């Protein structure tokens, strides 16, 4: 249909093809340069807030809100970072966040993969209803859940524990994990398993030895999603924890906003330090992310 619509415009036949062929041999074409320049300009605009955050974290405390400000700090200093590392509390906060996000990822990916395997490899009664249920739970707004969660967590004696946060985040990450992994598993040919099945491998072993390596992009993408989801949460961390020892990074940063004044200096350094792990995670996983994340996200 699309091709017909375009075919009606047919006029020049071979000429553009020849032109394209010669352009391809010539690596630097003016159009590509213009495009790169546009991308570079846009990249500068997008990176400007981050540039501002990082350079301000390198200013001495009194210079943060100087107007008009210089582009670069005239006397860069690591003073703010010293303040953050000077207290043992921040180390604890960082470890808390990695632990909670890591455990959430493990739970969400494991339970999600099991469910996705069941949903992509079997037909069973109630499967449609189950799909509907999973999609439906994804729409639940977190802000609607804080009071019931608070009551629930209190009831089970989990108030002010990391377990409460892990369970909460895992339950919010699960619907997306199931959806992403189900679509990803569905792309893997079932024949591969049939031969293993004849060799006498059990279902769980097949999931581990055949699906895991083949679905790695999807699994990594799902894991990154679950990790980010729990790493960035502030709402539940505020409501379900109270002691300093339980604080996660977003809460730690927000706690620096006091009643009277804001410790901008420490807050900016902590913000920069908080951003590094996810950037590293992306750099490590980006090979898988582009294929894995997108397939699951778009096909649902």
């Amino acid at each position, binding site marked *: 249909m699309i091709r017909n619509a375009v075919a009606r415009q047919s006029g020049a036949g071979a000429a553009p093809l020849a032109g394209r062929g010669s352009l391809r041999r010539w690596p630097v074409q003016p159009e590509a340069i213009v495009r790169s320049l546009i991308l570079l300009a846009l990249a500068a605009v*997008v990176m400007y807030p981050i540039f501002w955050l990082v350079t301000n974290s390198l200013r001495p405390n009194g210079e943060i809100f100087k107007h008009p400000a210089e582009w670069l700090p005239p006397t860069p200093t690591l003073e703010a970072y010293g303040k953050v590392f000077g207290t043992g509390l921040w180390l604890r906060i960082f470890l808390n966040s990695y632990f909670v996000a890591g455990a959430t990822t493990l739970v969400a990916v494991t339970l999600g993969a099991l469910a996705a395997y069941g949903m992509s490899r079997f037909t069973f009664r109630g499967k449609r209803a189950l799909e509907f249920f999973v999609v439906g739970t994804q729409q639940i707004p977190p802000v609607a859940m804080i009071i019931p969660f608070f009551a629930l967590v209190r009831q089970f004696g989990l108030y002010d524990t990391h377990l409460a946060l892990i369970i909460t985040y895992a339950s919010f990450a699960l619907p997306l994990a199931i959806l992403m992994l189900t679509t990803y598993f569905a792309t893997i040919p079932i024949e591969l398993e049939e031969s293993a099945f004849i060799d006498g491998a059990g279902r769980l072993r097949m999931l581990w030895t055949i699906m895991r390596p083949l679905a790695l992009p999807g699994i990594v993408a799902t894991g990154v999603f679950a990790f980010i989801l729990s790493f960035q949460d502030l709402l539940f961390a505020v409501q379900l924890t109270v002691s300093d020892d339980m604080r996660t990074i977003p809460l730690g940063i927000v706690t620096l906003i006091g009643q009277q004044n804001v410790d901008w200096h420490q807050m900016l350094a902590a913000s920069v330090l908080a951003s590094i792990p996810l950037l590293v995670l992306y750099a490590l996983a980006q090979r898988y992310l582009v294929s894995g994340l997108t397939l699951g996200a778009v096909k649902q």
Partner: protein
Amino acid sequence: MPYAFVAPAILVMAVLMVFPMGRMFHMSLFQDLFARVGERFVGFENYADLFQKELFWIALMNSIIFVGASLIIHQIVGGGLALLLTSRMRGSLRTFFRAIFITPWLIIPAVVAITWVLLLDHRGGFNSMLRTLGIVECCPPPEWFGDFKLAMPALIATNGWGGYPLTMIMWLAGLQSIPKDHYEAASVDGAGRWRRFRHITLPAMGPTILTILLLDTIYTFRNWDLPFLTTGGGPGDTTMVLPLLTYREAFIGFNFGISAASAVMILLITAFFVFWFLRIRGRLLEG
């Protein structure tokens, strides 16, 4: 056999999503929750109270503006960048630019909020830049998040920056799934860039764009972090959105019943948009 695989996940979701969900509906029908005198069934009175509050309608309107404007920015910036990134270029260059443009997605909302408050402060970087460029020379420089007229645009810009990468990623995926030979056939037929976009890219991307709009609506409508940390709903109520109202009713007003009613409204409005999008999407996929 299949039930053994899905059971653990379903169990977790039943206990942690369905049960609290039910509890929330239940709470929206009661008053004096968590009070010593004991809760009291009031039917739909909380909803009636909520609809009588002027603030609810203000928050609803603000939410619609916030979501609508954010979605438009996300589509234009995210879609545009995805189109630029899929054009012919060296692989390493593509990886580099993709990493740059994805960066805001990797910054957690708390840091996004702090960065933009720092940037848009009246002594902040943005005003300094405007001054350097000679745009704002008179009068005291604007306090973006504190100005009645500028707070909402500032909030939308903040969310636009933090949220466009997800749209871009999904656009990239959709664009990758369009068969290359469609474009080649069109080129042979002499179709120009705009014609190829109009007759190949757009029709092929239709369902994907609707999926993105759907997810983006869900995510933006429920966004609590950014408004809470940047403006807190102010100045006045100019940036009061529904999640903030829900939060404020519960934790500042201690009207748990009204807060629950407001939460139910968020859910219903989201569900309405989801069904609407799914219907259009279904029609697109058929036609």
